[in-house]
Each structure stands twice: as structure tokens, then as C-alpha cells.
């Protein structure tokens, strides 16, 4: 499976290639890495194809139009493919006044940053390209780099419009990273882990167990998170960097053809990534509103030492679909917002961030901490799937703590010597 976590007992893809196909380690790892990358790049690319079609349809319906109707049958399914063919056929122009190297590289930087976030994003229990114990932090750090592509594109185009777009974007993204990180901190604090798989798994069971229903403040903070996420992926009403009415097309004004489309692949990729992060942090990830698989006894979680089971695999597959569905709902809401709300002015964007999002998220953080410490019941306690200590501050659980902390193990060399000496004395 995709799980290549070092803590897991189930074999990783690389180990499978090595043991079953007798490949050398380096080759097995390379092959496994290529498979993961291939699958993920398809998630991003096919996702972008579908989302662009969705965006056209949704915008059409919101504006009382039909949207694409002809290419590929009744609903215009293949419209994006036709767009892609058109974009490939277009001339790839580099302006004379541009810094050619940076101009050509900028789209790929954006895309690489957006794509790197997927490396640590789990799609179901253990289905993650690289299992990281600090996945939340990694995703936030990597998504923050996407702005570089936009800034460099704006700067290297050698155009005033582009430069203004890039400057606005950098100011906006640097600002919105602050409240976004604070919002993400709430689920991390409640669960006591930055491990996305762990965060999703404590929300198993009925939808009342989702962390958005943990206390009233996580409920508020989710909306702040969604606002900040929309702003950080540069979507309307926060798409100041590409404001058509003021800046022609902003940072991507000088781009044409495939390079232009790579910016949009990055944008749709990060839309899905932030929505997926929201689904895991607040909406239970792959744990559905109704725990069907728990009721019929198919376990998501792989029990160490147990053989591979079809039921577990199917449950995980359904969980993966569940997660993707939740993320797609998030993306659709972003599209709905884009075609409903007018664009903000730059000062309004900054006000929203510093005067509303930051204080609200900071206040909610403190209040949610108090709520958690006081152990006040809320929706999470209606039908808990796991004992409370396993959800709230489960890091205090003694067995886990003893197993997880290094304190017992780091003294190993000396401790071993000591036991050897004691044994000798006896």
C-alpha cells in the first residue's frame, strides 16, 4: 500500500519490491518513490482537469448560463482537455524585458510547492506517500513556498502590472499565514499530535466525534481557517494578485500557453490540499458521518502482525473516497464563494486578516484550551467511539507515553553497560 511509515509494521512498497522481486534496495526505493510520485501527480493533474470543468459549470450556473455543453457529450466533460490542447498549441512567449531564467522557472516553483504538500497528506489510514509525524507542520511550511512562484513571476516579467500583483500576493500570503497557523493549532492542541493520521483516527465514529464539534471555538475557528485558506491559495474574493479590473491579469499577465496553465494546476492543487487538510483536521478525514465499516466490523486500522485483509482494504478504499469527497466539497465551496462575492480591496484584505482573523483565532485558541482543560462536555460526548482520554490529551495516557518518549530509550548505551556491570557483579 502507500503507507511507507517507518513505525508501521505493514510492509512498505519498497520492502515489497525488495522481498518479492529481489531488487537491490536503492532500486526498490527508487521504484517505490516513482510510484508514489506518479500516483500523486495524477491526483493533482486529473484533479485540476475536473476542477476546471467544475469551475466552468458552477460559474455558469451561478451566472444563469449553462457553461460548457458540447465537448465530450452532454455536460461538456472534456472541455478542460480541449482547453489543454489549445494551451499546448499556443506560442510560449518570453517578453524581451523579462529575466528569462526566473520567468521560465516561476510556474514550476509554484507547482513544486503545491505538489510537495501532497507528499505528507494522507488519503486514508496509512495511505500516505511519506508518513511524517509532523505532517501538519510540513504541509503548512511547504504550502507557504508557493508564493515564491508568484513573486518571482511578478518580478521577472519586467512589467509594472505583474510587479504589483507579485507584491500584493506576497503581502497577503505572509499575513494570512499567521491566522491560518493559529487555526491549525487548535486541532493539534486538542489531539496533542501533528500526525495527520493520528488526528483523523481520533475522530472515528459518528459525525459528532469530528473535531469541529469538539467545542464551540473549534466550530468558529474552522470558518476562520477556511477564510485564511482561501486567501492563502489566492482565490477570490482574495485574488488581488490577479485582479483583472485593476492589474490586467496581475502576476501571470505575461504568461501564455502551458506555463500559464501550470500556475493554475498549482492553484487547483493547493485548493484541494487545503480543503483536504480541513477535512482531516475538522471533519474526521476518512471517518464518515456514519461509521458504516465500524458497524459491519471492517477495520480501517491495520492491526500489527495481522495478515493483509480484503475487508480492511475495501474499508480503506471507501475511506479514501470519503476523504476525497470531503475535500471536493471544500473546493466547491471555494468556487461558490468566488462566483458570489465581489473582490475585496487590498486594505480590506489586510483588515480582514489582522483585525478579524488573527484576534478571533487567537481568542478561540485560548478559550478552546480552557474548554479542553476544564473537560466541559460538548457534541463530541454524545456518542464517543473512543474513550475520552484517547481523544483529548491522549498523550497523557501512560502506556503511550512510556512507549513514545525517548526518555526511557536514550539512555540505552549507558543503561546497557550498567546492567552488564551489575550482571557481572552478581
Amino acid at each position, binding site marked *: 500500500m502507500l503507507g511507507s511509515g517507518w513505525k508501521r509494521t505493514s510492509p512498505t512498497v519498497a520492502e515489497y519490491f525488495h522481498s518479492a522481486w529481489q531488487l*537491490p534496495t536503492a532500486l526498490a526505493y527508487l521504484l517505490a518513490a516513482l510510484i508514489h510520485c506518479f500516483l500523486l501527480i495524477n491526483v493533482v493533474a486529473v484533479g485540476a482537469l475536473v476542477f476546471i470543468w467544475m469551475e466552468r459549470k458552477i460559474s455558469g450556473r451561478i451566472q444563469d448560463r449553462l457553461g460548457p455543453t458540447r465537448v465530450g457529450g452532454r455536460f461538456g466533460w472534456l472541455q478542460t482537455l480541449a482547453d489543454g490542447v489549445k494551451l499546448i498549441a499556443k506560442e510560449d512567449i518570453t517578453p524581451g524585458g523579462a529575466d528569462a531564467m526566473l520567468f521560465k522557472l516561476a510556474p514550476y516553483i509554484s507547482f513544486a510547492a503545491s505538489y510537495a504538500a501532497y507528499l505528507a497528506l494522507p488519503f486514508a489510514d496509512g495511505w500516505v506517500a511519506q508518513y511524517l509525524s509532523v505532517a501538519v507542520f510540513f504541509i503548512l511550511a511547504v504550502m*507557504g513556498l508557493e508564493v*515564491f512562484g508568484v513573486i518571482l513571476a511578478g*518580478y521577472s516579467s519586467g512589467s509594472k502590472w505583474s510587479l504589483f500583483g507579485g507584491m500584493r500576493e506576497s503581502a497577503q500570503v*505572509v499575513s494570512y499565514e499567521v491566522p491560518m497557523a493559529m487555526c491549525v493549532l487548535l486541532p493539534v492542541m486538542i489531539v496533542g499530535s501533528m500526525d495527520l493520521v493520528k488526528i483523523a483516527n481520533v475522530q472515528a465514529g459518528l459525525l459528532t466525534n469530528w473535531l469541529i464539534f469538539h467545542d464551540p471555538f473549534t466550530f468558529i475557528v474552522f470558518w476562520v481557517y477556511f477564510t485564511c485558506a482561501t486567501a492563502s491559495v489566492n482565490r477570490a474574493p482574495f485574488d488581488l494578485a490577479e485582479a483583472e479590473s485593476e492589474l490586467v491579469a496581475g502576476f501571470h499577465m505575461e504568461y501564455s500557453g502551458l506555463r500559464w496553465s501550470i500556475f493554475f494546476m498549482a492553484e487547483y492543487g493547493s485548493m484541494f490540499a487545503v480543503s483536504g487538510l480541513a477535512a482531516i483536521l475538522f471533519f474526521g478525514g476518512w471517518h464518515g458521518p456514519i461509521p458504516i465499516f465500524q458497524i459491519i466490523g471492517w477495520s480501517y486500522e491495520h492491526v500489527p502482525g495481522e495478515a493483509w485483509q480484503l475487508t480492511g482494504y475495501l474499508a480503506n478504499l471507501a475511506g479514501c473516497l470519503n476523504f476525497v469527497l470531503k475535500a471536493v466539497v471544500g473546493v466547491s465551496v471555494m468556487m461558490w464563494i468566488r462566483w458570489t462575492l465581489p473582490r475585496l480591496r487590498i486594505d480590506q484584505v489586510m483588515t480582514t486578516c489582522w483585525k478579524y482573523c488573527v484576534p478571533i483565532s487567537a481568542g478561540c485558541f485560548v478559550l478552546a484550551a480552557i474548554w479542553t482543560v476544564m473537560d466541559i462536555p460538548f457534541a463530541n460526548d454524545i456518542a464517543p467511539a473512543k474513550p475520552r482520554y484517547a481523544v483529548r490529551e491522549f498523550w497523557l495516557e501512560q502506556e503511550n507515553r512510556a512507549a513514545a518518549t525517548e526518555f526511557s530509550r536514550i539512555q540505552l548505551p549507558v543503561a546497557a553497560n550498567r546492567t552488564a556491570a551489575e550482571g557481572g557483579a552478581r
Partner: protein
Amino acid sequence: MMSLLAATAINWHSIFFLLFALVACFFALAVLFTSNIVRMAFYLILSLGATAGLFFLAGAAFVGAMQLMIYVGGTLVLLVFGVMLTAQQSFISMKTKGGDWILAAAAGGTMLVLLISIAFRVEDWRAGRPDGDQLTAADVEDTTRIGAAFIGVRTDKLDVYDDAAKDGESEPDAAGQLTLQGMSGYLLPFEIVSIHLLVVLIGAAYLARAKKRAPARSASTTQR
């Protein structure tokens, strides 16, 4: 996992280490030898990103992500942003004078000699690890030790301290916990660095304000 890695002659860990290290060094040199500031920033992104890759390779995912967030995502965005705000012409280029080259080479060379001599003085680093072929990408499990060191607990000295407690040199306090004597960890350097940074921030804010105020006042008076 262990048997898998031991079974091969190719140490994939070293290959990736060399790859990341070469990228980091190459682009660090590129930063030096280019004259365009924004390109410098771009090369610095790649160099620091490769350094983050080294951290990930060492299993220190938290430190790697921290590197990406603070240096690449924070400092460099601000750098490029500052260049864009203050740009007088479209592409700024910096020319380094001959004297500056000599000074920089002297300072950098001294530092390099110092670092290399220190690196070779560490006994453990001279030979490869005996279990080098069994290294995994995540040899270090988590950042508990670093975190503990920052709040003043030297986890690498806990056993020494344990022995001291057994010998009765250190008494358990009222809560039954052993008092941590002589285990300041990295708390003091950490605090010194943070206060230093605070002073720098205040100084920078003061300088920036003093410069901006004068023209702003004159502009407002002319309006009146």
C-alpha cells in the same frame, strides 16, 4: 527494514546525502557569483531547500520543516519583498569590488578552516557508524530531545543525573520529582538568542521609523 537495508552494497542514504549536499553547495556558490539580487534569493531558496532535505534525510522532519518555514518561507519572502519595494530600476545588480572580494575570502576562509578543524576533532565523526548500512531515513524518532533541551532538560545527561540521584547527591523535592541540578540544557543560550533578536527588532523598528517620519510630516504640513 533492517534486513532489507543490510542486504545491499549500495548505501542509498549516502547517495541522497551527496545529492542534497551537492545541490546545497552548488547553489550557495551560485549565490556568491551572481550579481542579480533576486536571482541570489532564488539560488538561496534552492540551497536552503536542499539543506532542509538533509534534515529530512536525517529523520529530523521537524527541523527540516522549520528550516523551510523560517528561512525559505519567512526570511526569503521578506527579502524578495523588500527588494521589490525598494527597487529603483527593473533589475538590480550588485558589483563587488576587488577589495571586498579579498576581505570576504579572508573571513570566509578563516571560518571554513575553523569549521573543518572542529569537524575533524569530533572523535565519532572520523569513522563511519558501525551500523551505517542499517540507517533508515528516519533514524531519529522525534524531536522530544531537542524540545526537552530547550526547556532545560539535557536528555543525554539523564543517566548521569540518575546515578547522582542514586548516590544521594540530589534529593527528591516535595512532589517526589528530582530537582534538576546543573542541567540547564539549552535554555540559557536560547533565551540569550531570543533577547538578542528582540533587541535587533526594536532597533530595526526605531531606525525605520526615524527615517520615514520626517518626509511624512513635511508632506502633511504642505497639505495644510
